[in-house]
């Protein structure tokens, strides 16, 4: 198992946000966390990246990483693309991509990877010299994903990648994520409001409610179950 989570509690100050979360993710696989607003999906990703106080066990490739500093977790090859995008608004598009690779030292590889990101997202290439703050919401989301890819990640944590994107762009983005997963073998854990799309990409889904996993199963089964869809996924 690449990622194993067991008995994970998370806290914002005194407020407990996650209760005994347990799940696992295999090398190169895609899984999704679904649930209503406030169910704790984002908190799971933040816990994995060491951005909130946690109890319990998080293992990545056999190493126990619970309690580690965010920057050390990232250096293991875990790229977290946060919601609200988290791009660096005051530096250029290209500098954002370079920042994604700031922990790497292979100059030639970085240059090649920037070109690869540009080939995924040609619009970013057109805007390479612009400050990221001048991009549209959709372009910033692409930049955030592109920046995550620059880490050459083993695992990507994607928080609402479709948020604020026009439907056509959402499909484009998910197609790119599928290619990244298939061609580069990057494992992904996706948090999504757009459950239908996430279930298409993922092979397995977890349903969260008030900080607990209440159900999980193969994506096809979860997506086909009409009562689950109505109760949890809202479509």
């Amino acid at each position, binding site marked *: 198992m690449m990622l194993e989570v067991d008995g994970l509690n998370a806290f914002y100050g005194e407020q407990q946000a996650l209760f005994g979360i347990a799940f696992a993710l295999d090398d190169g696989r895609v899984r999704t966390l679904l649930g209503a607003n406030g169910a704790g999906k984002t908190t799971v990703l933040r816990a994995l*990246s060491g*951005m909130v106080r946690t109890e319990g066990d998080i293992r990545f490739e056999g190493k126990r990483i619970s309690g580690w*500093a*965010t*920057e050390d977790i*990232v*250096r293991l090859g875990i*790229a*977290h693309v*946060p919601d*609200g995008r*988290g*791009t*660096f*608004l*005051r*530096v250029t598009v290209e*500098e954002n991509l*370079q*920042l*994604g690779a*700031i*922990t790497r030292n292979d100059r030639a590889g970085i240059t090649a990877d920037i070109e690869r990101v540009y080939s995924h997202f040609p619009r970013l290439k057109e805007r390479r010299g612009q400050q990221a703050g001048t991009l549209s919401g959709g372009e910033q989301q692409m930049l955030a994903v592109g*920046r995550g890819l620059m*880490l050459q990640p083993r695992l990507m944590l994607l928080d609402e990648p479709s948020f604020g994107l026009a439907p056509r762009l959402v499909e484009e983005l998910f197609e790119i994520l599928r290619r990244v997963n298939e061609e580069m073998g990057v494992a992904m854990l996706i948090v999504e409001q757009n459950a239908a799309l996430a279930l298409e990409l993922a092979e397995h889904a977890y349903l969260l409610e008030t900080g607990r996993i209440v159900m999980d199963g193969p994506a096809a089964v979860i997506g086909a179950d009409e009562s689950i869809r109505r109760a949890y996924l809202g479509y």
Partner: protein
Amino acid sequence: MQLLLQQVIAGLANGAIYALMALAVVMIFLAIDHLNFAQGEMATFSAFVAWQLIAWGTPYWVAFIAVVILSFIGGVAIERIMFKPLHNASILSQLVAFIALFSILNSGDGYLWDYTIKTFPTPFGTSPFFGSVLIGSHQAGMIAVTAVLLVFLYLFFRGTRLGLAMRAAAHNPESARLVGIRVGWMTALGWGIAAAIGAIAGMLIAPIVFLDPNMMFGVLLYGFAGAVLGGLTSPGGAVLGGFAVGVIENIAGTFIPYFGRDLKLTIALLVIVAVLMVRPTGLFGRTAVSRV
């Protein structure tokens, strides 16, 4: 007309020092959101160390480089030892820490080197610059060293990966951690660079104001004025603000009757108050926006 030109150029020379102090203040402000009230005392301490090295017979430029390096290390050490543990402390605790640092350095200077005023050597000489009546050679040297330093810093922050990482850490610490930048160390590095910049400012201004433990008090005030004028969030703006304050100070001191030399320091405060009233973010600053 010549008097005006002379005062503008002399103002630029002093302004160079204010610009450096403003830049040092902004470097730390961007990293930790606080004004470093001890910036002037750090610079004075550095100038004393340089004075001591030169008194022991070290050649000027060797002492200069050594002090810049030592100040950088000292700045990093101050952050690691004193301010890193206070990272999440209340604003008042941090303020007290700055005051403590101020007093420690100020009385440290006095204890080690006593409070008598000392002359400080200049490598540029004091003769008029190439026979010019406009500017002395030390003033010209101040402007030149400042210009070289500013170009160097610009290239560092715009052209290197470390400079890019420092900018990213200052602008968006959370995202910086998510790309693996060690934000705490970037803050320490910011302190080191600020201390080194301050050391250069201190060594350049000391031949003019003479060396004593309170040498930088007024200078730092002008530096603050420059930083506020240009914008505390804009390094380039702070530099321009520092130069502007130097020129304003000199011209007002010369041409406004009764103001004279005695009330020059007041001008720095007037600039701060006026800017805060009209444009609180400074000429080039940005309004802080936080996502909630």
